[in-house]
């Protein structure tokens, strides 16, 4: 059943921050931000696929679909992405152009 109030983030264009590197690990990946030196663990391979796919998708929804994340989990993934945005691991693409 489609969510009556979809998370607005799903329609936005995002990407990995330019100063972030992803290191593959057996459990997912480790994200390191060379600017603020924060280390974050992406604990699911699916989340890694979504994060990597952000830049190639017109919006978050597209990246989730491309990574094969079932629709009922999108809200949870949107929250996880918002968490990654707090430490600038990912950022909105418009901001990237402006920066």
């Amino acid at each position, binding site marked *: 059943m489609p969510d009556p109030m979809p998370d607005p983030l799903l329609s936005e264009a995002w990407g990995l921050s330019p100063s972030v*590197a992803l*290191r593959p*690990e*057996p*459990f997912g990946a*480790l994200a*390191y931000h*060379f600017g603020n*030196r924060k*280390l974050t663990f992406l604990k699911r391979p699916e989340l890694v696929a979504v994060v990597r796919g952000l830049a190639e998708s017109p919006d978050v929804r597209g990246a989730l679909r491309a990574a094969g994340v079932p629709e009922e989990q999108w809200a949870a993934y949107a929250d996880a992405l918002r968490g990654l945005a707090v430490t600038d691991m990912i950022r909105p693409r418009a901001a990237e152009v402006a920066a």
Partner: protein
Amino acid sequence: MTAVQERPSGGSLVQQFEYGLDAPICLTWELTYACNLACAHCLSSSGKRDPRELSTEQCEAVIDALQRMQVFYVNIGGGEPTIRPDFWHLLEYAVNHNVGVKFSTNGVRLDPERAAYLASPACGGYVDVQISLDGATAEVNDYVRGPGSYDTALTALQNLQDAGFQDAKISVVCTRQNIGQLDEFKALADKYGATLRLTRLRPSGRGADVWDELHPLPEQQRVLYDWLMAHGEGVLTGDSFFHLAAFGESLPGLNLCGAGRVVCLIDPVGDVYACPFAIHDNFLAGNLLADGGFQQVWQTSELFADLRSPQTGGACAKCSFYDSCRGGCMAAKFFTGLPLDGPDPECVQGYGETALAGDRTVPAASQDHSRTTPTRNQPVMLKLMTRPPVSDCAESPLAGFEPIGG
């Protein structure tokens, strides 16, 4: 990779870490065994340079390997790393190869010019500086680190601040003598715009000789725990105090022994050990020159495969705090001659005291780079230590401890 036990999918990060990572996240690299000081508790028994120390080119090759493995930063130490003539070159080489550097120093070379360099765009904010200070007053600090070392450290902090270097770290090894100074350390850090880093005294290197006298008493462990509960968020501790979790709640920081799993040491001659506090043949995984490079050693050493397979709790398994304390620090147990699968010598439930009082053999050091002739700035404590060795029983490990219950 060697056949490691099947890794579970999902689960907590701590569980994932127990199975190891493709590359370390907390790598210490000691560049030299040479040091201008002779701290009584030096974890690597430093003093004299080892003639086999890696050359500049070999060090650059290590940095290249770290870049390939995406080791995003390395903790550089020694000895005193800044007395290597190529130290500043290697620092810049690392930064230019996307390997950030946190280096530990006693401050001896951090004059205004070097401080300005560290604050400059050449370092691009990729460099962290940690000044070692083991007393908030000269009296307490110089007792273990040697005369003049307090002034050297404070001058370095002042130079960094004057140069506009942001957020230096003051790194303190917590001892019986300085636990009462935690607030003063915090005030010092605030004064210099620095962050306080508290670490645990481990009986490693020369630390083994002075551990009985320096390690915090049981009631001081409680003071430390309460202080960290109140101030912990703004203070760095690494993996130092997870054994204190058995007082109640876990503290912030890495809550497991990461040796060979997420932690390791590259020593000045390229030997790779499970942990900087475990410089002993028993924890030697290989040598990066002889065994095909750092990546090869990290990913295929038998020792590391062992450390990454599930461990048994031994005598700790019955303890209700085992989930958070996990039996404490492997190095602390090893160098006090306690079984690795039993309680930590500083077990806050008191089992360590019992274990220390029992039968045990403290392992002999497998190497020592201490100077054989005393230096001008040798700590007083060391001079005291040169009295005829007191018998093992002269200082009871139970001194000042009232065993309550088991």
